[in-house]
C-alpha cells in the first residue's frame, strides 16, 4: 500500500478522490431515478465548490460573488444551445449573432466557461487590488450586479421570467466527467508554481510579497481560473435543469456552496470534495425530516451544521489535510487502536487571549 502511494506520487489525492466519487456515481442509480438525480446535483456541486476553492481556498480570500460566474455560464450555455426556432420564438429581440448561434454541448461548455472567465478578468481589474476583506465584500457586490443584470435584461435573459427550452444534455456520466476534470484541473493549478505562490500569500501576505510574489497578480489569475471552472459548472447545471431563473444563481446557491466548502474545510481540495458529499447526505436526511416539521428544516439544519463546524472545528472536517494513501492508513490504524483522533491543529492555542469569566 505504501508503495502504491509512492508510485502514484503527487497525483494520489485526485486519484483517491476520483475513486470515491466514481463509486458514489456507480451506486447511485441503484437507488432509482431520484437518487441518480441527487448524484448529478452532488457532482455539479462538487464542480462548483472545487471552483470556489480554487480561488477562496487557495488565496484565503472568501468570495460571496463566485456564483455570478455560474449564472453567466448558465445563460451563455443556454443561449447558444437552445434550438434556433425555439429561440426566435422565446427571445425575438436577441442580438443576431446569438440568435443564429447553435453549438453542441461540449463546445457550449467551453464557451460558457470562457465567457465567465472573461467577466472574471474584467471584475478582477478593480477587485483583485483590494485588501482581502474588502475583496470579499466587493465580490458580493458583483453577485448583486450580475443578478440585477440577469433579472432586467429582458431581451437576452427573459428577465425574472424563466428561461426554458434548454436542451437537457447533462447525464450522470457528463456530470461525473466534468466533476473529475475540474478536480484534476484545480489540483494541477494548486500544485503548480502559480498555486504555490497563491498559497504562500494565503499563509502570510507580507512575507509572500517580500519574497517577490505579486499577490494581486496571483489573485487575479485565480479569479479568472475559478471563473472558468464555475462557468463550466453553470453550463452543466443549466443543461440539467432545462428551465431556470436568475434566482438559481443568487443567494441560496452562494450560501450552499460556501457552507459546503466550510464544512469540508476551506484549506484542502479534499475538503472541497467531501463538503458537497457530506451536505448531500445531510440534505437528504433533513428533507426526510421536513415531512414532519414542514419546509425550512433543510436550510436551518445546514446553517447550524456550518456554525457548529466554524465554532468547534474551524478547519473543517478535512482539517485542511489532503486525502493520501498514508493518511488513509493512519486513519485505519487509529481506528483499530480506538485512540481519539488527534487533529493536526492540536497545538495549544497560545496566542488566544483567555476569555473573561
Amino acid at each position: 500500500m505504501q508503495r502504491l502511494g509512492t508510485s502514484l506520487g503527487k497525483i494520489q489525492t485526485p486519484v483517491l478522490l476520483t475513486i470515491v466519487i466514481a463509486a458514489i456515481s456507480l451506486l447511485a442509480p441503484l437507488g432509482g431515478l431520484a437518487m441518480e438525480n441527487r448524484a448529478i446535483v452532488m457532482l455539479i456541486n462538487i464542480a462548483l465548490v472545487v471552483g470556489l476553492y480554487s480561488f477562496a481556498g487557495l488565496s484565503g480570500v472568501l468570495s460571496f460573488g463566485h456564483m455570478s460566474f455560474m449564472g453567466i455560464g448558465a445563460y451563455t450555455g443556454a443561449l447558444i444551445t437552445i434550438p434556433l426556432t425555439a429561440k426566435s420564438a422565446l427571445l425575438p429581440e436577441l442580438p443576431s449573432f446569438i440568435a443564429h448561434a447553435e453549438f453542441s454541448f461540449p463546445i457550449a461548455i467551453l464557451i460558457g466557461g470562457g465567457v465567465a472567465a472573461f467577466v472574471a478578468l474584467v471584475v478582477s481589474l478593480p477587485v483583485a487590488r483590494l485588501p482581502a476583506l474588502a475583496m470579499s465584500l466587493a465580490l458580493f457586490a458583483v453577485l448583486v450586479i450580475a443578478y440585477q443584470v440577469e433579472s432586467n435584461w429582458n431581451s437576452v435573459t427573459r428577465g425574472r421570467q424563466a428561461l426554458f427550452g434548454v436542451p437537457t444534455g447533462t447525464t450522470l456520466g457528463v456530470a461525473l466527467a466534468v466533476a473529475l476534470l475540474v478536480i484534476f484541473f484545480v489540483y494541477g493549478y494548486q500544485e503548480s508554481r502559480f498555486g504555490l505562490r497563491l498559497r504562500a500569500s494565503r499563509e502570510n501576505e507580507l512575507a509572500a510579497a517580500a519574497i517577490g510574489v505579486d499577490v494581486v497578480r496571483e489573485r487575479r489569475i485565480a479569479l479568472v481560473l475559478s471563473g472558468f471552472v464555475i462557468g463550466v459548472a453553470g453550463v452543466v447545471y443549466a443543461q440539467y435543469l432545462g428551465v431556470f431563473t436568475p434566482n438559481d444563481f443568487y443567494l441560496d446557491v452562494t450560501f450552499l456552496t460556501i457552507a459546503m466548502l466550510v464544512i469540508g474545510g476551506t484549506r484542502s481540495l479534499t475538503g472541497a470534495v467531501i463538503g458537497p458529499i457530506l451536505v448531500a447526505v445531510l440534505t437528504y436526511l433533513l428533507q426526510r425530516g421536513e415531512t414532519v416539521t414542514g419546509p425550512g428544516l433543510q436550510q436551518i439544519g445546514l446553517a447550524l451544521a456550518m456554525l457548529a463546524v466554524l465554532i468547534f472545528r474551524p478547519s473543517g472536517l478535512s482539517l485542511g489535510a489532503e486525502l493520501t494513501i498514508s493518511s488513509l492508513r493512519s486513519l485505519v490504524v487509529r481506528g483499530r487502536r480506538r485512540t481519539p483522533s488527534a487533529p493536526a491543529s492540536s497545538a495549544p492555542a497560545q496566542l488566544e487571549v483567555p476569555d473573561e469569566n
Partner: protein
Amino acid sequence: MLRVDSLEVRYGRLTALHGISFEVGSGECVGLIGANGAGKTTTLSAIAGVLTPAAGTIELEGAIVNREAPEAIVRRGVALVPEGRRIFTTLSVEENLRIGASIRGDDEIAADVERMMERFPVLRRYAGTHAGKLSGGEQQQLAIARALMSRPRLLLLDEPSLGLAPLMVDLVFDLVAQLREEGITILLVEQNGRRTVELADRTYVLASGSIVLTATGPEDLGEVERAYFGGDAAVEA
C-alpha cells in the same frame, strides 16, 4: 507579590520560555534583561494575561492567575507599560490618563489626573490634543502615567528607555527610582543592562527563554556581560 514558577510559553510549536522561575517581593525593584528575542516581552505578556502559559504557574499575592484575562489582572493591582508604549493615539492626552483609571470607581480620578499633570508637565501642555501628536519621549511619559492611573501595586515596564534620546533615558530611570521610593513594586524589562543592574535590587538575565544568571549589584556586571552574549557592547547601550 509576584512569583513565577517554571513558566513555559509556546507560540504554536515554538517554545519561547523554557520554564523560568523568579520572584518579585513587595516593594522591590527587579530587573529582567536580555537580548532581543530572549523572552522578556513574552514573560511580561504572560504575567499581564495576554498570553496563556503552557506550563508552570504565575502567582500574584498568593493566587494563581495563569488563565486570567488582562482586565482581571489589572484589577489585581498590576499595570503594564507595554513595549512600544501603545498609547491611544486617537484619544486626547487627558483621555489617555482617564482611561488608565478604567478599573476605578472612586471620585479621586480627576485629582489623580491633576497629579499626573503636575508630575509630567508636558502632559498638561498637550492635555486636549490627540496623543498621537506627542514625541516618543512624551508618549513614554504618557504611557507610564496612564499605567499609574490605575494605582497599581505592581508595575510592569517593558523597555521604557527603548528608542529615547539619552536625556530622556535618564529621566525614565530617575522616574523608576522615584516610583520605587513611593512603594510601588516594579518589574523592569530592559535591554539597557548596566543601568538596570545599577538600579534594581536584583536582576535576572534571560537568554533564549531561560534565566541564566541573577545579578544583585554593580559588582556582578562583568559576569552579566559575559552571560549576556559573550561581552557584547549591548550591555553598555
